[in-house]
Every structure is written in structure tokens, then in C-alpha cells.
């Protein structure tokens, strides 16, 4: 397993090996699926669309519908305007979405296709009351996280309006989390009695039930009228700097909706901050139901602490997710050793280093724009007790025999993850279950027979 990975670390400036990121358009596609009756459209060569649908489908085990401008060499020379026009006509005729969310690719960005103009020129083929919007998502900048953030922002840019009447609702932008997380955030907001617009919202779309009928547009997803009305909300809560802040800033700029950025509510402290914020907003005491959940989490943290205490952890993935996980493992008494993201940007390193400094954790490696080859090399030099990240880490986990928990995107080799949260107190309870299970499994699998315990 990964036998060619050397222990010796050679500095690399050009060669990316085993990435911890992918390109922007897939994030844009995922974000667009969180809007009801929205069909994502990839403006580029058809392979991009095929790849993104493939990977999203493998993650969710659900239909992922999207169309493509299907560029050929001609379109690459003369521009994709005519492809766009044909696509818009065909899409509304055949697939009848309420909205088409176009994202670009490195191809259409490199040739400089002007999507705004192209969409304007396709107006005649856009039926009354339907929309076509776009986000610029060049694959050669940022990562899939950037593409997600840009598409969420594009919905605001094109749709949200401040019509002068303030509503009682707040906007919550959940960031790139699973449908189960979006559902959990909605549940918390409902218990806290907060009127809200959650967008995007892939619950009810990428966890749709089996009924015997294929629904091109499942019943979930944020409604277009809600995104329009988001311009009248009294506040936007952006959960996650990388995934949600851009849209919140856009709402503030365009519609004067004040905004506040919080971390993705992963783990006890981030959830505490989230709940405190919501309680402040609602001017109500935190409901008993939430306090019970929190109490259960703390109970579990105490019950299981012996297995976590002092354990070294490597975490890789998307910045907002890694940040939440780092804070949580610290609160369990663990020591985060390596924190890696493929996504570029200094904010990731700064945010994590702040958390580490607050908790007086030293000798940790925090790196954005890094990859899994490097993470593996670091682990070969100084091993860890637990690895957390997406499916790609399973190779490292096997090579180094490290307990491994799958969190993030993509999870290609396990089932049911999209139904359950990692956010909130309930999500933290689930994370403890997952982490303690793999740690205990390894003890059971490797300990001498005389040490094999019935009760742990």
C-alpha cells in the first residue's frame, strides 16, 4: 500500500501528488443542487460535467442531474455562445427546471467567455418566470470549496432583492456540509424558534427517498422565492469562512443585510457559539431540549475520555470542516498533530494556529495548499493515533495501520453518511461514536489475547 511513498521529504513546488482538493466546478454543482428545481449547467467540455456528476453520485449514491455546453474544438476557438444558447433552449424544453445555474470551467474561463452577456442573449429562450444565473468557477484558482462559495454568492447576486420591507427571518448559510447536517441545522433553528432561510439546502435532494418514481427535482432545496426574499432578512449567519462568507458579504453589499461569520458548528465549542448566537437573536432562553442534547454530549465526553486523552490526530480536508474538527478533538483531550488542506489561502493556517495557540498546542504542522502525499510522509516520520478525512485517506490508514474516520468530501466507500450530521451536539455525539469505535477496534484487533477485554 503506497509503497513508493518515501519517508524522506523532498520539497515540491510543481508536482501535486495525491491531492486534498479538487477543482471549483464540482463545488458549484453541489451548491446549485441545494436550490429547489435547479439544474446545474457546466459551461465547458462535456468531460467536466461527467466527472463532477460521477464523483457527486458516488458520494451520495443519488441521482445528480446536470447539463453541459459540450464544447468541441470549434467552440473553444470561436467561443461557447452558440453552445450556451442551444443548451438553454434544450434544457427548458426537455428538463423544465425553474432555474439553470451555470458554472464555468477552465476551458470557458481561459477563452474568456462572457457568461453575463451570453445569458442576456439567451433571454428569448428563457420562459417567463424562469431564471438563468452563473458563477465564474475557473478550475485553476482556489478549489472545489471556492466553487461552492462562488455559486452560493451568485444566487444572491442574481436573485436576492431588498424590497424595503424587513422580514423577521434570518439567513443561514450552512456551507459545504452533508444533507444530514443541513437537516440538523434546520432542526436546531426550529427548536430555537428562529424563522430562517437556509441556503443552499441539499436535504430532501441528495437524500431523497425511494418511492418507485424518479423525481428530476426532488422536493428539497431552498426555494427561489426565499433566496429572493433573503435580501429582506434581518441578519445573515455565515457558517464557515471559506464556504459561506462570500455570499453573506454579497447580501450585505447588495441588500444591506447585516452579516456575521461563525465557524461550522462542529464540536461542542463551535456549537455553543452557534446556540449562544441564536439565543441572543431570539431573545429567548435556550430550550431545554437543546440543553439535554448538550448534557448528553458532555456525559459522553467524560465516559470515553480515557480513549482520547493524549492521542495524536491528523486531520485533512476542507478548511471550515478541519477547523471545527481541530477544536473538537482538542476539547476531547487529543493533540492535533497534522492539519492539512488542499485548498489555498492563508486564512486556514491563521484560524487553526489561533486555536492551537489558545490551547497551547505546539509542534503541530498546519498547511494549506498541501496534499496527502505530504501528509503521509509526515506521518511516516512521526506517527499519529487517529486519521480523520475523506475516503482518499484509507490508503494511508491501511499503509500505516492508523484508525481512520471518514469525514468530509468525498466519502466514496461507505454508506448512509449523508443521512447523519457531524454538526451540532448530535453531530458531536456521532463523531465521538465514530472515533471511539475505530480506536477501540484497533485495540481489539491488535492486543495480545490475554489483554482482550470484554468491557471497555
Amino acid at each position: 500500500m503506497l509503497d513508493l511513498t518515501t519517508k524522506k521529504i523532498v520539497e515540491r513546488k510543481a508536482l501535486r501528488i495525491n491531492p486534498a482538493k479538487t477543482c471549483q466546478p464540482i463545488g458549484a454543482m453541489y451548491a446549485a443542487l441545494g436550490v429547489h428545481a435547479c439544474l446545474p449547467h457546466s459551461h465547458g467540455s462535456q468531460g467536466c460535467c461527467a466527472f463532477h456528476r460521477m464523483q457527486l453520485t458516488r458520494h451520495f449514491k443519488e441521482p445528480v442531474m446536470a447539463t453541459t455546453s459540450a464544447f468541441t474544438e470549434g467552440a473553444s476557438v470561436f467561443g461557447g455562445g452558440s453552445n450556451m444558447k442551444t443548451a438553454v433552449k434544450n434544457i427548458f424544453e426537455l428538463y423544465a427546471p425553474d432555474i439553470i445555474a451555470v458554472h464555468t470551467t477552465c476551458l470557458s474561463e481561459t477563452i474568456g467567455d462572457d457568461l453575463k452577456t451570453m445569458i442576456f442573449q439567451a433571454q428569448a429562450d428563457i420562459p417567463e418566470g424562469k431564471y438563468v444565473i452563473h458563477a465564474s468557477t475557473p478550475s485553476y484558482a482556489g478549489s472545489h470549496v471556492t466553487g461552492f462559495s462562488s455559486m452560493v454568492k451568485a444566487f444572491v447576486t442574481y436573485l436576492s432583492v431588498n424590497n424595503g420591507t424587513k422580514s423577521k427571518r434570518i439567513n443561514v448559510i450552512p456551507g459545504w456540509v452533508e444533507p444530514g447536517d443541513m437537516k440538523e441545522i434546520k432542526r436546531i433553528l426550529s427548536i430555537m424558534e428562529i424563522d430562517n432561510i437556509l441556503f443552499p439546502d441539499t436535504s430532501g435532494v441528495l437524500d431523497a427517498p425511494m418511492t418507485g418514481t424518479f423525481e428530476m427535482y426532488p422536493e428539497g432545496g431552498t426555494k427561489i422565492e426565499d433566496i429572493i426574499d433573503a435580501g429582506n432578512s434581518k441578519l445573515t449567519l455565515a457558517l464557515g469562512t471559506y464556504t459561506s462568507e462570500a455570499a453573506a458579504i454579497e447580501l450585505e453589499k447588495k441588500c444591506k443585510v447585516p452579516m456575521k461569520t461563525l465557524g461550522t458548528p462542529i464540536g461542542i465549542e463551535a456549537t455553543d457559539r452557534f446556540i449562544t448566537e441564536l439565543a441572543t437573536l431570539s431573545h429567548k432562553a435556550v430550550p431545554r431540549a437543546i440543553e439535554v442534547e448538550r448534557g448528553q454530549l458532555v456525559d459522553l465526553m467524560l465516559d470515553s475520555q480515557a480513549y482520547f486523552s493524549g492521542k495524536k490526530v491528523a486531520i485533512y480536508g476542507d478548511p471550515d470542516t478541519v477547523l471545527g474538527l481541530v477544536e473538537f478533538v482538542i476539547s476531547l483531550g487529543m493533540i492535533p498533530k497534522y492539519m492539512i488542506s488542499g485548498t489555498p489561502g492563508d486564512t486556514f493556517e491563521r484560524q487553526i494556529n489561533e486555536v492551537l495557540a489558545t490551547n497551547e498546542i505546539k509542534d503541530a504542522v498546519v498547511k494549506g495548499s498541501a496534499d496527502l502525499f505530504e501528509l503521509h510522509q509526515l506521518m511516516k516520520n512521526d506517527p499519529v493515533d487517529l486519521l480523520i478525512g475523506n475516503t482518499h485517506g484509507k490508503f494511508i490508514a491501511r499503509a500505516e495501520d492508523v484508525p481512520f474516520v471518514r469525514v468530509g468530501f468525498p466519502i466514496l466507500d461507505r454508506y448512509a453518511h449523508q443521512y447523519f450530521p457531524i454538526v451540532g451536539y448530535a453531530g458531536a455525539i456521532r463523531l465521538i461514536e465514530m472515533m471511539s469505535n475505530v480506536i477501540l477496534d484497533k485495540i481489539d484487533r491488535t492486543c495480545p489475547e490475554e489483554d482482550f477485554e470484554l468491557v471497555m
Partner: protein
Amino acid sequence: MKDFIDKVLDKYPAKTFKSRKEHIVIKKASEAPQKIIANTRTIPGMITNRGCCYAGCKGVVLGPIKDMIHIVHGPIGCSYYTWGTRRNKAKTEPGGQNYIEYCFSTDMQESDIIFGGEKKLRAAITEAVEIFNPKAITISATCPVGLIGDDINAVAVWAEKTYGIQVLSFNCEGYKGVSQSAGHHIANNNLMRSVIGTGTKVPTKKHSINMLGEYNIGGDGWEVARILKKVGYDIVCVMTGDGSYEEIKNAHTAELNLVQCHRSINYIAEMMEVKYGIPWMKVNFIGATGTTQTLRDIAVYFGEPELIEKTEQVIAEEIAEIEGQMQYYKTRLEGKTACLYVGGSRSHHYQTLLKELGVETVVSGYEFAHRDDYEGREVIPTIKLDADSKNIEHLSVEKDEKKYRMILSPEKYEELAKIIPLAKYDGLIKDENEGTIIIDDINHYETEEIIKKLKPDMFFSGIKDKYVVQKMGVMSRQLHSYDYSGPYAGYKGAVIFARDITSGVHTPAWRFVTPPWKVEPLLEGKVVGGDE
């Protein structure tokens, strides 16, 4: 059925209607030869299953070669999506290098797009050599590379000179051609030009063969190799599943090329015949019938009585082992219907296996095939090249005076060609039952309409429509990746396939799709009145 197809087509806007109607044919023997349009542009706005040129080149043909570093020059996505996603399995040879678990990219950034990425590509090669010391490297270009004019061929030449290893460059930008097919061709050309025939081995072994167009998905290639070795064949190389650069270099030493996936590798087969005199034969190792026929064809080719005898012995042994199981699965599947929509040859191959299991194919089609895959190679001279195809280099090779061998005399060749499929592929349509619908580059809309109308029992396709089909209540399996199962090839593979589809069709979960309260009334009614 024609009325139904017309109704489906009617919904298309005029231009789309005009294009799509030529991609759908209903098999009618009285109208033979039937023509179908294929290998043309996908219409923008369709929900297509097709991928791109890069996917065909790096993803399909090059990727499985395990002992080369495949550097993708471009932004990160293209390399990322072909990392471990295709199930082309590979085993590390003792002392050998195996890069199958690795993903290499130049991860181009905005500045590389603006100022050019050649410098970064050179640096990436340098780093790869320093860290891994590989025997050979490939460079695959992605969309922006061609647009900004990075000369990857010049970089490859530089790298060969600098590091003394072979570095191959492939201009397989995603926008080239109309599907993966262009990429297959580009990969074939450069393997032929730069790798095949460069090995120093001399032909010594008898009954030596190459397996072409076998990508070892789910271990198919290993199962086929097991059977071939049992008969006594020497496998020189496999292109490219579990493939090895070292072995491909010596491919010219074989006496016969077997072509499994016609679409992706027929170019190499043709060129090797011209250059080295090695005849090629279309084979089908899917299903017991196909495998048996293929083994007999190969034995006839070599023509030695002991080999023919051994072949029959192997066939008998293998069939004896699976017969009972196949019969059992047939009882569970008999009378069911299937739709097949896979790449370039599988839709054809799997029909014979399905037939063995009593399953009738009612719709079949290819994602990126050409007309010859549907109609047979005899139509090749009549296919007019359009602009998209003309942009893909057609490599012409000449006889290699030193390495060319007369393996069969022209007379013998002619004699054999009458009884075995030498340089011959009859295509899909001829084998179809009357009334079968044949669709090229099917899209989501057509898929949905067809399932609603024909209500097949099973649908074989890829990951992108797998769950669409399943949501409609039809068992679906991926025939690109075998849904994490396999091997499906050969005799033992046929049983695994039969087991998988039987369990898929009969899994108890189907019974629970409709909740009980939707079938029976929730409250028991009580008759009022009477004697009570």
C-alpha cells in the same frame, strides 16, 4: 415501437430532433444493412453520459499502465477524477513500481495560465524523477494547455534528454473530438509510435499473444489470463489493464493480437498488423458462450491439434465447474428483459451472457462508439470524416523491415479469415433481436422515457444514471465498474455476474418500496347492521 420513438423525438426542439432521430434505430432484418449515426457531437444542454478526450486517453488507455508516472498537466480536477475511480486493478511485480494508487498533477494556477505552464511542467517532471526515479513518464494535456499553447511535446523531448528516460506527451485536451473516443485514438497513436516495438526481446515463445482492449476492471484481465495460460498461451502483454511499460515495449514479439474492446484499441491492432505482421482477432471473453467461441477461434488460428485438444479439455473443465450454478441462476432470471448502455463494446459483449441466463436485451447502445461498432467494420471505408474527427491525427505506419514477421502466409490468412474473425468485427446491430431499439449517445430524457415505456427488469449503464434508474424501480448495475464486484469475464466471471444480477433483481428491499398502508386499508371496516 416506431410510434413510441417518434413520440419521444417529437418533444425535441427542431434542430435537436433532426440530430437525434438519426441516432436511434429499431432492428429490422428486412432493412439490413441498417445505418446509424454515431461519433458526432453531443448536443449542448443534453444530460449525456459522455466524457471527454482526456478521459479516453489518460483515464482509459494510459492510466492502467502501472509502472509509468502519469502526470496530468492542467488544473487539479482532471487528474483528481481519474484517481482510483475506474477499478483498473494492478498488482505490483516483485521489485517493480506500481503507481496505480497515486495521482500526479501540475495543479496549474492562474499565473500558469497567464504566463504559460511549461516551466511548471518541467519542474514537476524533475520532482517526479527525484522522488520516484521512474522508468517512464506520460504527460497528458487538459483543456487550457492547448488553449494557452504550452508545448508539452517539447517539454517531453527536453525531459528525455535530461533524465534519460522515456517521456511521452499526449495532446488529449478535453475539447478534442466528440467523446472519450478521440482520446483512445490519441493514446493508441503514441503508444504505437513510441513504445510498442522498442523492447529488445526477440520472439521465442510459441503461442504468444497480446490482450488488447482489456483494462482489468474488477480483475477481468486476470481471469482471462488464467484461462489462456491454462490452455498454454504465453501472454506477452496486456493493453493496458495491469499493464506494464516494459511488457508493452515487447508487444511486437507476439504472434496474435486479441482485441476485446474494439473501440478503444482497434487502431493499435491495425497498425501492428501493418508494421509487424501480427494478425488481430476480435474476441469476447464475456459469458461462457463468448469465451468458448473465442478460445476455439484462437486454437484454430494456431491450428495445432494438441492445442485444439487442450482447448476443448479446458472448455469442458471450466463449463463443468459453472454449469450447475449458471442453470440455477437461469431459473431465477429467465424471461426478464434488459437495457444495455455502456461504452464502446460492452453493450455487445454482455448480450451473449444475458442470453445464456435467459435475459432478453430490448434496448442497447453505446456511449462513444463509431458506426463500425454498430454496423461492422465493413462500413469503415464509407464513413465520412467530419471536422471533429479530422482534428485527430491518423497515424500511418509502414512495415518495420527488421521486426516484421510473416506469421501467416497470405493464403493461410485468407483461409482462416473465412472461419475466424481475423481483422473482423461485425458490430452490434447484426446480433440484435428483431425489434430491439439501438440508441447512440442516449441522454437522460430518452432513458427516462424508455424505462417508463418498456419497464425493463434491469438496466446496465454507468454511475451517472444508475440511481435514476433505481429510483424508477428498476434494478441497475454499472457495467463500467461492475459496482465494486467482478471479475465478470471468463467462465467464473459469468457466475459472479449471474449471482450479482440475481441478487439485485430479487433483493427483498424491492418488496418494501410501497409501504403496507398504501396497499391495504389502514383501519379495518366494520359492517354495520345485520344480525350482530
